[in-house]
Every structure is written in structure tokens, then in C-alpha cells.
């Protein structure tokens, strides 16, 4: 692309070099950022898992002595915060980061440096919240932080909560904008919206939910912060503050948040199943519009978290109805997944097992979800282990199974080698059994009247047996992830080359080398159909059976050219220090609010300098 102006002399040189830790710290490559997202999220997953094991150990038997009430409250709060904000969301974002550009035929996201900024803010935000353990106690008011308890709890725990989530919100918002624009605007020629892989579609819905949900929780968290630190009255009943305001704002964010966590997994499954069934997705349009419908309806059901709060029969009925009918689009998706398997030639691989596990478990979560909409009985279920069972079937049986399916599916693309199928299947069965052992009994515990967030329970309530089973299951899940880690290490040593297209995939990312070059596509592909890559490899016979038009595929036309000309003349955005610099401003401001007002100014200054450097550094093409 010809440039007309003379290159500016930037005051700030941009870092160079493609290897070494500095290249990771300053990278703006969506693939590296995606990997960093997933690795960080997995690290937090292990921490959150250990917290869960401590919780289960405490509850394994009546009058447990493992944890004190104080410790228990901190651990269940941090378990929730960690798994939601530091594991499921960032894992989804990590996969989006890595895959969306590859799937839509782009060379990077719309805003590479903003992308890096999102990651660093996410990382620092997570560390900020966890630093509270060493600075006088972690948040202990529940991830839902109901006021006025959250404004009354002593110590800085809940202040860390309000500020930490605020910081993570900045990361999510930046990421959301970035991906929305990337998907709208960075598609390869011919990649129309209705040709996009379902994962990209679900990511688009997810990012829109983030875009509109994050500001609401931001306001709620600010109000909580002002109440705690600056003696405001938003949630102070004695001054006329209304505790229900927090609940409305929180769940206005909190329910879309549920779909923010589950939709990317649904997208992954919708791409994994067709590949291994060797069949196009059944009812592409229906599955896409179902996703969009879920996104919309997700805004009309928040008050079903408040059926016991006293909204009155009219509001309760209205939200009961909306809650029931959001099950319809969800059902559509499940039927379409089954339809995708129907008549296929299914290769039962590890990613496929996890994807089917997702569908199987999500059905249970969906059914128990419908049972919440019968309000009078929800008043029995709410805040019992029945709820805990329900959302673990959705977020673990759902989201985590889907994400792990994604890891096994795209691992060969990202690292160029295959994970062991034998260990992978062992991982699946251990996780599947452990999961059901851990969470199926919670349905019963809930119906037997065991409330959540109890650090102890007495003997003679009929809860002992199932709690023990559940704890057992928890440890089986832990074991299954040990197997996963072993799998990664051993497969890495063995390094069984995957080739470009190990699964005979359907979408663009399989048309390029594994791991992909920095510029993704040597020649930007021209897309002619949905599942473009599949249609380049196969034509359908009149009987509707696919026959290969050429073998392998990686060297076909529109795939990456021969290596010597590959990447020639492609200008990728240069790495940058400033996303990292700027991101440091936020946690420093956070500590400032809690400990020393001066730091607020310092943080703001760092943020501003970072942004100025960001703006003023010569942008990519001028470095050439």
C-alpha cells in the first residue's frame, strides 16, 4: 500500500526482536496474546480448583474442622470470582484471540495494541484481587457482593473486590470493542456474515453482551466503592439506601454474564461436532439466530435471581415467563447439535468426546434451569445446593467441557503437535465421572434443604452421605486435570507432528501451517462458501457424499504459498511497550484508593503517560 507522507521521526522507538521474554511482554500478535490468556487463565483455574477442594474438604462431613468461618467465606468468594472472571471468561477470550482472525481470514485483530492492553490489564487485575490475601484478607462477601453486607464487612476484602472487578471490567470492555470491530470489519473477501464459523458468531454475540453489561456492573462497583471508602449512602438502609438497587444492577450484568461464559463454548462445540461428524452443521441459520436470540433474551431475565427478594407477583410472573422461554432457543441449539451428528461418520476423538460431554451435561443444566422458573418452588430452591448444582452443570459441564474440547481440538494448530488420544480420553472419562459425582448429588442436597454458603452443617440433617460423595467427585476432577497436565508434558516431549490439517477440518484456520506464521495468511484467502476450506478439499457427489478433489490440502491454491515467498512484503504491527506501561496505572490507582490517595495520582499519571506514548509512537508502516 503506497504511503504519501514522509515517515515521521517517532520520539519513541518501537521494540524489535521476535524471541526472548521481551518479545512476549511487548507482543501485539493476537496468537501470542491468545496463548498468554489461556495459560494465565489455566493457572488461575488451578488456584480456583484448589480453593474448591478446600471447600469440599470442609464440607465432606458435618461440623468440618478444615476451615474457619472466616477462611471459608474468603475461599468460596474467591472461588467464584476466580472461576468466573479469571478462568471461564479469559479462556473464552483467549480462544477468540487466537482463532477469530484465523477463522475470518485476517492477519490480526483490529487493534493489536489494545488487545495487548486488555491482556495485561486482565493479568494485573487478577493479581490485584489475589494480593488481598496478603494485605489483610480476601473478599468474603460472595462473588455477588450483596449490599449492605458487602458495604459492612470489615477489612479491605470487599474494597479489593469492587476495585479488582472494576479493573477486569476495563480489560473485558477493551477486548469486547476490539473483537466486535475485528469481526465486523476485518473479514477476508467473500467471508460474509452468514459464512462465518459459528464460533465467530457466538463470539460476536458474547462481545456485544460484554459491551453493554460491563458498564452496568462498573456503576454498581463504583457505588459500592464510594459506600465503603468515601461514606456514600447508595446501599445504606439507615440513610434511605435501597439494597435492591445493588441486586438489580448486579443481575442486569450478572445474567448476561452467564451467557458471556457459555456462548463461546457453544460456538466451539458447533465447530467441533461437524468436523468429527464429517458433516456440515445442521441448521446453521437456526443455530446462529438461536445464539442471537439468547443474547437478546438474556437481558430480560435478570430478576429471576431475585424471586425471594419481594418484587411482587406481577414482576415475578413476568420474569418467570421470560425465564421459561429463553429455554426455547437453547433447546434449538441442542437439537441442531444432535442433528449434526445424525447420519455422520463420527470419529470419536478426545475433542469430540468433550464436545458431546458438553451437550449431555448442558441438557441437565438447562432442565434444572427451567425448574427455577416455577417461582414458588424456586423460593424453595434458591440459595440451596440445588442452585449450585444447576450452575455447575451449566458452567463446568457446559463452559469448561466446551473450552477443554477447544483446547484438544486446536492444540495441534497452535503448537504443531498432537496431544495423546489415550491420555486425552482418560482425562475425559475421569473428568466426566468426577464431575457427575461432585455435582449430581448437590441436586439432592439442595432439595433436602441444604443452603449454600454454609461453612458448616450439623449432623442429622440427612446431608452427610451426599456431601462425602460430592467431595470425592471433586478430587476425581482434580485428578483428571493432573492427567491433562501429564498429557501436555508427554506429548510435548514426544512431539508427534500434526501437519496443517490433522482433523480434516472445515474452517480457514486449517488451511495454514501449524503453528501459523506471524502473518497468518501469506495470501489473504478469498472465501466462496461456508466451511470454505472443506469445500476446497471436497465436492459433493449427486448422492450427497463428499469426494476429495485433492489430497492433503495444505498446499492447495489460496493456502499459504511456498515458504520462500511467504511473508514477503507483509507489514505486521510492531511490538510495543506502552500497553504494558499503561496497564500498570490501573492497579496502582486501585491500591491508592485503599491505602494511600497519593498513589491514585501516580497511577493516573502512569496511565496517561502510557497512553500518550501509545498515541505518539510511530505506527507500524512508518517503521519500514
Amino acid at each position, binding site marked *: *500500500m*503506497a*504511503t*504519501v*507522507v514522509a515517515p515521521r521521526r517517532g520520539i519513541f522507538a518501537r521494540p524489535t526482536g521476535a524471541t526472548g521474554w521481551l518479545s512476549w511482554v511487548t507482543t501485539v500478535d493476537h496468537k501470542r496474546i491468545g496463548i498468554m490468556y489461556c495459560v494465565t487463565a489455566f493457572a488461575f483455574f488451578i488456584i480456583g480448583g484448589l480453593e474448591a477442594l478446600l471447600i469440599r474438604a470442609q464440607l465432606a462431613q458435618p461440623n468440618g474442622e478444615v476451615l474457619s468461618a472466616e477462611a471459608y467465606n474468603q475461599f468460596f468468594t474467591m472461588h467464584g470470582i476466580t472461576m468466573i472472571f479469571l478462568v471461564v471468561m479469559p479462556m473464552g477470550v483467549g480462544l477468540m484471540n487466537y482463532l477469530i482472525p484465523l477463522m475470518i481470514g*485476517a*492477519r*490480526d485483530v483490529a487493534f493489536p495494541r489494545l488487545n495487548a492492553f486488555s491482556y495485561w490489564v486482565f493479568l494485573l487485575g487478577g493479581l490485584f484481587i489475589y494480593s488481598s490475601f496478603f494485605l489483610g484478607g480476601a473478599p468474603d462477601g460472595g462473588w455477588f457482593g450483596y449490599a449492605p453486607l458487602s458495604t459492612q464487612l470489615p477489612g479491605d476484602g470487599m474494597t479489593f473486590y469492587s476495585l479488582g472487578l472494576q479493573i477486569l471490567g476495563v480489560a473485558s470492555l477493551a477486548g469486547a470493542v476490539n473483537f466486535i470491530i475485528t469481526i*465486523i470489519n*476485518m473479514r477476508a473477501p467473500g467471508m460474509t456474515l452468514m459464512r462465518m464459523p459459528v464460533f465467530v458468531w457466538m463470539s460476536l454475540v458474547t462481545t*456485544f453482551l460484554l*459491551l*453493554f453489561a460491563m458498564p452496568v456492573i462498573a456503576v454498581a462497583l463504583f457505588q459500592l466503592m464510594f459506600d465503603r471508602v468515601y461514606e456514600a449512602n447508595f446501599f445504606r*438502609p*439507615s440513610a*434511605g439506601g*435501597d439494597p*435492591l438497587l445493588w441486586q*438489580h444492577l448486579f443481575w*442486569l450484568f450478572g445474567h448476561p454474564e452467564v451467557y458471556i461464559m457459555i456462548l463461546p463454548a457453544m460456538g466451539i462445540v458447533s465447530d467441533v461436532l461437524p468436523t468429527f461428524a464429517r458433516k456440515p452443521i445442521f441448521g446453521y441459520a437456526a443455530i446462529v439466530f438461536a445464539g442471537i436470540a439468547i443474547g437478546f433474551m438474556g*437481558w430480560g431475565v435478570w*430478576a429471576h435471581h431475585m424471586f425471594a427478594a*419481594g*418484587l*411482587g407477583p*406481577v*414482576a415475578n410472573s413476568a420474569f418467570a415467563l421470560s425465564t421459561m422461554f429463553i429455554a426455547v432457543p437453547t433447546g434449538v441449539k441442542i437439537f441442531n447439535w444432535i442433528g449434526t451428528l445424525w447420519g455422520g461418520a463420527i470419529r470419536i476423538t478426545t475433542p469430540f468426546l468433550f464436545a458431546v460431554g458438553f451437550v449431555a451435561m448442558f441438557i441437565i443444566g438447562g432442565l434444572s434451569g427451567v425448574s427455577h422458573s416455577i417461582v414458588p418452588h424456586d423460593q424453595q430452591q434458591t440459595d440451596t445446593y440445588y442452585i449450585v448444582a444447576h450452575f455447575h452443570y451449566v458452567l463446568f459441564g457446559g463452559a469448561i467441557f466446551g473450552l477443554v474440547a477447544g483446547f484438544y481440538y486446536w492444540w495441534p494448530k497452535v503448537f504443531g503437535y498432537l496431544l495423546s488420544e489415550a491420555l486425552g480420553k482418560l482425562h475425559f472419562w475421569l473428568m466426566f465421572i468426577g464431575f457427575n459425582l461432585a455435582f449430581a448429588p448437590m441436586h439432592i442436597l439442595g432439595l433436602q434443604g441444604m443452603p449454600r454458603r454454609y461453612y458448616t452443617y450439623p449432623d442429622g440433617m440427612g446431608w452427610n452421605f451426599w456431601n462425602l460423595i460430592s467431595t470425592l467427585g471433586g478430587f476425581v476432577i482434580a485428578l483428571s486435570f493432573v492427567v491433562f497436565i501429564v498429557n501436555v508434558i508427554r506429548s510435548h516431549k514426544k512431539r508427534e507432528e500434526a501437519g496443517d490439517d490433522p482433523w480434516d477440518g472445515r474452517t480457514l484456520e486449517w488451511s495454514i501451517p501449524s503453528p501459523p506464521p506471524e502473518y497468518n495468511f501469506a495470501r489473504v484467502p478469498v472465501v466462496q462458501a461456508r466451511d470454505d476450506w472443506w469445500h476446497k478439499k471436497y465436492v459433493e457427489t449427486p448422492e450427497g457424499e463428499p469426494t476429495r478433489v485433492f489430497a492433503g490440502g495444505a498446499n492447495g491454491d489460496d493456502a499459504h504459498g511456498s515458504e520462500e515467498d511467504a511473508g514477503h512484503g*507483509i*507489514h*505486521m*504491527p510492531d511490538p510495543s511497550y506502552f500497553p504494558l506501561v499503561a496497564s500498570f496505572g490501573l492497579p496502582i490507582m486501585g491500591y491508592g484508593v485503599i491505602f494511600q490517595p497519593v498513589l491514585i495520582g501516580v497511577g493516573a499519571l502512569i496511565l496517561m503517560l502510557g497512553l500518550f506514548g501509545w498515541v505518539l509512537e510511530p*505506527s*507500524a*508502516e512508518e517503521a519500514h
Partner: protein
Amino acid sequence: MTQTGIEHSPREEEELAHHPDPRQYIVVGVWLAIVTALEVAIYYVDSLQDIIVPFLLVFAFIKFFLVVTWFMHLRFDSALFRRLFVSGLVLALVVFAIVMTIFLARGGAVPEIAGG
């Protein structure tokens, strides 16, 4: 993705062509001033106090509309910009209308409840 930051796609060229000239901007500015004056004026007309709210809302909407369509060029630019913005705006209006309705329907704090 080579980043020239130089050429405008044809689409943008015509956008720029569509942008109104300073005179129109000033006319809009004058209208804004007039509407604001009206708002403040009726605020002081006692006879209108009972029905003032709809008037004020209409005036506010007019100002909002003028700025968004002329100064932010939504009437000239691509519909996509409008959709992004309006979806957020409408969503906000709808959900918070519902929230406020719920609060109004159930009333607020019960005054007679004492602190002890």
C-alpha cells in the same frame, strides 16, 4: 494489514463530501440555544408546572436529536454507526424503565421501621 492511514475508501470520501458546511452548523447551534432558552423559560412559568415534564422531555429530545444527527453526523454516516449507538441507547432505556417500574410498583423503604 498494512496500515497506511492515508487513503480514504471511496465510501469515506463521500461521507466527508456530505458533511455540512459551517453555516449549517451555526444554524443548528442557534436552534440548540433557542430550545435551551425555552426549557429554562417554561421552568419559571408557574401555570405550566403540572404539565411541564412532557414539555421538558420533548425539548431535551430535540436537542439530543440535533446534536446526534448533525454534529455527530449520524444522518450522513453509515447506518452501522447508528445501529451500534442506538442499540445501546434503546437497551438502556428499556431495562432501566423496567427497573424503575419495579421500584415504583413496590415502593421504597418503609419509614416506620425503626433502627432498634
